[in-house]
């Protein structure tokens, strides 16, 4: 019934507008929800709309957002990456160990952590594209393997020893009080946007997700691009892990347990379809911020942690319902 009401409204719009509308509609929905939450929190909590708090939120959401951008690419190919939380932890501990035990300078340590993530992504990508494993299964396996490795290399204890300058990544502040993690989000998002919309990789990712066989029969080297997509997701998970490690100046082997759910939720809320072929960077960012604001607002309003879970779950339902509605509308219009 809701569908019919929405449909009759949208049917009255001119074609061109309607097309763009449907394209942007999930972003609109999530973006609208974001605005509503921002308005609500601004009214209800005096501390919310302060530069301090907003910068805090930006820092808090940075690693989730960065990882979500990587996972967006994977989900566009109709795949999924469940391993990002564990890979982030593994990258964090190994990166810190490289700096603390091997004495690597901070930039190399961060690079090292990112490469660890890329390596895990490569394994995922090969399992999916060459061995033909279902992405859910392949990355589920990596989830446990990476977590196990995190515990083994650290003896199940947090690792310290990185130089103080490592804190800059996750705690540094630029002129004007803008936290470095926020800058990182912007840079990674821009890069993600360019990749998705302007490069072969992005285009082929959409094609593969929309119709794998059609992509193959159009001469696209599917294996190569599918693997690349997982490598990127892994690398961003690794980079996100370094950001998280920098925030606490240590490598925590138990970091990120369950984080993949927040990440995937962000991507889905932002309008990507788990069936592939759809998804945008902006949408993912909106989704990530939406979740972060729900968490932030809950603490500001002293709401129980577990209610936050329920709220986020409901938001996911609404996002997916909207996605279904949009699909049905489009399907109905093509005989």
């Amino acid at each position, binding site marked *: 019934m809701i569908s*019919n009401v929405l*449909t*009759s409204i949208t*049917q009255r719009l001119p*074609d*061109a507008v309607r*097309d763009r509308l449907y394209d942007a509609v999930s972003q609109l929905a999530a973006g609208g929800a974001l605005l509503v939450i921002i308005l609500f929190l601004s009214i209800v909590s005096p501390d919310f709309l302060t530069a301090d708090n907003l910068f805090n939120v930006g820092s808090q959401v940075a690693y989730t957002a960065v990882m979500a951008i990587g996972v967006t690419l994977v989900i566009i190919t109709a795949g999924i990456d469940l391993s990002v939380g564990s890979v982030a932890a593994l990258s964090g501990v190994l990166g810190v160990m490289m700096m603390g035990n091997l004495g690597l300078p901070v930039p190399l340590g961060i690079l090292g952590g990112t490469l660890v993530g890329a390596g895990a992504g490569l394994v995922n990508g090969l399992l999916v594209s060459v061995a033909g494993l279902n992405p859910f299964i392949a990355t589920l396996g990596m989830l446990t393997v990476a977590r196990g490795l995190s515990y083994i290399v650290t003896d199940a204890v947090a690792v310290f020893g990185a130089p103080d300058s490592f804190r800059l990544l996750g705690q540094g502040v630029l002129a004007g009080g803008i936290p470095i993690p926020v800058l990182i989000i912007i840079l990674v998002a821009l890069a993600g946007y360019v990749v998705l919309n*302007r*490069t*072969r*990789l992005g*285009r082929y990712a*959409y*094609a593969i997700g*929309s*119709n794998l*066989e*059609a*992509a*193959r*029969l*159009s*001469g*696209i*080297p599917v294996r190569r691009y599918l693997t690349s997509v997982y490598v990127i997701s892994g690398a961003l998970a690794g980079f996100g892990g370094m950001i998280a490690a920098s925030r606490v100046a240590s490598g925590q082997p138990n970091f990120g347990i369950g984080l993949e759910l927040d990440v995937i939720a962000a991507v889905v809320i932002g309008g990507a379809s788990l069936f592939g*072929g*759809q998804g945008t960077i902006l949408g993912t960012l909106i989704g990530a911020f939406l979740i972060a604001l729900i968490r932030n607002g809950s603490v500001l309003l002293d709401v129980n942690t577990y209610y936050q879970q329920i709220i986020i779950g409901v938001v996911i339902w609404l996002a997916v319902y909207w996605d279904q509605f949009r699909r049905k509308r*489009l*399907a*109905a*219009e*093509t*005989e």
Partner: protein
Amino acid sequence: MSSAETERAPEPVIRLRNISKEFPGVLAVDEVDLDILPGEVHVVAGENGAGKSTLMKLLSQVERPSAGEIELSGAPVEFHGPRHAQNLGVAMVYQEFALAPDLSVAENLFMGREPGRFGFVNRRAETSEAGELLERVGLDLSPTRPVAGLTVAEQQRVEIAKALAIEAKVMILDEPTATLTEREIEELFGVIRSLTDEGIAVLYISHRLDEIFRIADRVTVMRDGKVVDTVPAGELDENKLVRMMVGREITDLYPKHEVEIKDVVLRATGICRGNVLKDCSFEMREGEILGFAGLVGAGRTELARAVFGADRIESGSIELDGREVAVGTPQRAIEAGIGYLTEDRKGEGLALQLGVDKNITLANLPASFGFIDLGAERRVAERQRERLDIRTPSIRRAVRMLSGGNQQKVVVARWLETKARILFFDEPTRGVDVGAKAEIFQLIGGLAEEGRAIVLISSYLPELLNMCDRILVMREGSVSGEISRNEFSEERVIALATGAEEAS
């Protein structure tokens, strides 16, 4: 051609009065009046989007009419849903069958109305009653067989038997011959005639012109949701029918040009792939349209795919311009100038969610160092839209929103962009309107004129006989013969396709 004789009850078994169906923004069925007489074969013809399917959905109570009445045997019918329609004796056989492949024939026949009490199924009764029904539709197999093992034609027969199981008075068949061979079509027509002899009315949706003339008693033509007219089949000819369906004159359904055929440009020798392709060889020449004919499963698509590199071949060689090439993957085939338009454009050909422009450039992206030249892409798409007359409000529109004919044009545009000299068209007019079909054949003819080598795969013989210069006939994985244009005849093709005669 006509079925039961003059002993028809004058009362229509179904009468539609002023039926309309409105969807948001679309008037799918517009004040339709229609009578269906018992024991007649009534064909409903029209292009895609004419409203035929929606009309059938109204009859089978899958959709509720927005206005108008339906009468069954003189009594008005209330809308209660598909189950109600079945109880009243209206049975629908869909294009995609509604059978559960893992269950047996008998279980499928009685789905939802299994004989038995207190929740227990009386299997013996189920099996024997199923056997009787199968006899009536001329299907000679065991009712306990799982449906999955049956051929498409057999499954269709089971669907028809399902209709008999509910004691249908009206059976609706939606494009039943799309996936059948010639012989199976003939058998189907036999079954239909025996059903109408029993007094069952058969409503038959089709746009295959020659079939309409073979089976129909009366024909109702729909266009844009309205009924154009209902006429006895005897009063129709092809031109009149097409004119009613399209609303304008189509002078040339099969525009065949005279083209000078030049040298051999591709030579495939000894292509083998397991049991599917057995030592197949053929040649393609510049300017020539070569047809691949054969029954479903003969290996035509497989041969095309093998040459295109979409499937691995175990042995055999491919020569381009006299030089042997290893084609192996679609990527290499495209680089070598070979293109392949898939049989199933939605399933394998198009990225439905992406725009027209993105689909067109999919096989040949204008890009350097990994970055796409969006401006060039736009120009390419506009150029192709112009050239092929692709009807879409914008080149950015998602391809899934286009009609079948225009979707097919997008696929053609894609392959034109690869500058392929050798093109395989696999069932290019399946699911395409009469008007757009002519355009596509015009296109194919034009491509041949430009000197490209074309293979046309089609299950619809008239297409091949009209458009091709040569026809290669396949049977069970091997080439059973070749016929050149001056020797074309339906009988020759069918004989080679079914094995009645070996290579000429």
